[in-house]
């Protein structure tokens, strides 16, 4: 095999997700009454980036062969915290942002501690911590409200030079500052190894607990970036139970569309970002196709079903039935 083939094989999931997204986005913008304009892209980007953060957060945990059903609640909780703290002078705002991120990291650390050191199954552990996070969010914000530094918010949700959505730039920066270093670090590799074959990794002397713990903490951090950005986008905080759960489920869908294996050890946060953008575009398609209002949820459901079934096409190429069970 040529070198580039190995690269393509490694990136297959990501490339596929990227392809799906580009196709869907092309369909969307070419049918949009306003067309492919900076405003339309900005709107789509803002909405997509939010989910992209949560999906990245989910990815980190999924890579370790875990799942985080509390990720949406961390997102909601940090949104509520941000709506209380990220205001005032630039200094206060900066400290507020720091506090929000710390809250996210702490939530992730709590999950990690319970799963890794408490040895509980991630699914149930995070169902439970999700309830706790939501409860705290509700304490902070019994009703929707609060505020945020609007100048900063407008900058980050607006356009740079009137063209490039600032949200995409922000996302890129976070990817470069958080994901890439993690991916290329020993701990990052450890997280993959633990997700792929924990016992083997342990026997090989990989620091799997530390690696998984780091993954959970960074997951909390990324979810907090999501919560922060939600606050910039909405100017407020809200302890919304339904949307917390919705983001959790969306993030799982995004991660899968993004080529991240739910069995752990395979996939990348970049893929999950494209998965998130593609998932969001499913919703946007409602806007350009003239569907009866009552048919819209069904339409979204069917597209989602098709998108997640795409991976199944590979199945027909399988010629050894034992490969079903990998």
């Amino acid at each position, binding site marked *: 095999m040529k070198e580039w083939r190995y690269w393509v094989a490694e990136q297959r999931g990501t490339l596929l997700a990227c392809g799906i997204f580009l196709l869907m986005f092309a369909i969307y913008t070419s049918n949009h009454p306003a067309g492919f304009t900076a405003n339309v892209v900005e709107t789509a980007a803002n909405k997509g980036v939010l989910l992209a953060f949560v999906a990245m957060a989910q990815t980190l945990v999924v890579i370790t062969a875990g799942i985080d059903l509390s990720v949406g609640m961390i997102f909601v909780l940090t949104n509520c915290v941000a709506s209380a703290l990220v205001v005032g002078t630039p200094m206060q705002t900066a400290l507020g942002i720091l506090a929000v991120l710390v809250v996210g990291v702490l939530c992730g650390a709590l999950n990690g501690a319970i799963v890794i050191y408490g040895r509980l199954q991630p699914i149930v552990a995070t169902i*439970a911590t999700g309830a706790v996070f939501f409860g705290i969010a509700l304490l902070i914000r019994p009703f929707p409200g609060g505020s945020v530094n609007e100048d900063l918010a407008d900058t980050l949700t607006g356009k740079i030079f009137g063209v490039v959505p600032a949200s995409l730039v922000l996302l890129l920066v976070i990817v470069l500052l958080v994901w890439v270093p993690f991916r290329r670090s020993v701990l990052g590799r450890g997280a993959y190894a633990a997700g792929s074959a924990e016992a083997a990794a342990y026997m090989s002397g990989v620091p799997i607990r530390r690696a998984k713990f780091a993954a959970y903490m960074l997951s909390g951090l990324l979810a907090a970036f999501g919560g922060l950005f939600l606050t910039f986008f909405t100017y407020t905080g809200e302890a919304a139970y339904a949307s917390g759960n919705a983001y959790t489920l969306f993030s799982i869908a995004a991660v899968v569309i993004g080529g991240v294996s739910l069995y752990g050890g395979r996939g990348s946060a970049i893929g999950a970002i494209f998965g998130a953008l593609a998932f969001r575009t499913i919703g946007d398609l409602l806007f350009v196709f003239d569907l009866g209002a009552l048919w819209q949820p069904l*339409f979204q459901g069917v597209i*989602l079903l098709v998108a997640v079934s795409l991976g199944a096409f590979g199945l027909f190429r399988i010629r050894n039935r034992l490969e079903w069970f990998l």
Partner: protein
Amino acid sequence: MSDMASHGRAGYLPGFLRRADPAVLTAFACIVVLLFLGSLYSRNFLSPEYLLQQLKVASFLGVIATGMMLVVLLGQIDLSVPWTITAGAMMACAAAAYGPVGTALAMPFGILCGVLIGLVNGIGVAYLRIPSMIITLATNAVVQGLMVVYTGGSSPQDTATPAMRYVATGSILPGVPNAVIVWALVGIAMVFLLTRTGFGRTIYGIGNRERAAYLSGINTRRVVLIAFAMCGGLAAFGGVLLAGYASKAAQSMGDAYLLPSIAAVVLGGTSILGGRGSYLGTVAGVILITLLQSILSVMQMPEAGRQIIYGIVIVAMLLLYGRTPASR
């Protein structure tokens, strides 16, 4: 050590006792502790009326969790439970609009709809090898779409039939709600299925290692398909009961059952990775969750506190007995 053929008879304990692990016992102990704590707040928590009422409410979750347990034993999960419940309820009520025949067939029809949803899940998981977490998420969205279209598109009949009401709220044995009897029957059937039938063995086998089960000549895909269909049917049955209980079907009725049904199964000691768990544990888990929710609700705890305590109690109980073994 010599050949141990003679040991055979010792294995003749009833299945549920043989499998009764410390987790199940601890779960039941937790129930007692919860009741005790509740009784400190109000003596009424120990009254027979309250306990029967709890059992009745628990039986809806119980029926739903039964199906969930089946797929969890396979190492899978069913996230389509919320709208499967709703679809079961709505379709049962819808059938009642079609004269006496419709009324008579309402319950089976509702359950059948759940089975169909389960079949779609099962095909996705077993034949298309899509991770269950994701295919069931998608079918949930599709069923939601169908129900929204149904509710808005044709004048819906959403009143439960008298039979549904009777099954959910009547009592054929004095003092014992029918719903509890229904759950008991479902539970007995499930215990029998899991411990005495070949199908039950293959469920555990597949949950442990599907590859080995397949190479043993088991049609594992069919078993997975059937398990999902049963899970769908049981969720829909839960919906039918709920509709009977509330005497009507409503869109959001399934939302409150997804996470509790998973939590109940796991609190009962069933491994979320599949292959290990007993029905008795699920019973304990269901009662635990139901009691916990009820006690927090009645204690006038504000929602925020209720969520926090709910989460902490679940983690605490799991730390008590739900930990995976240490690797060293």
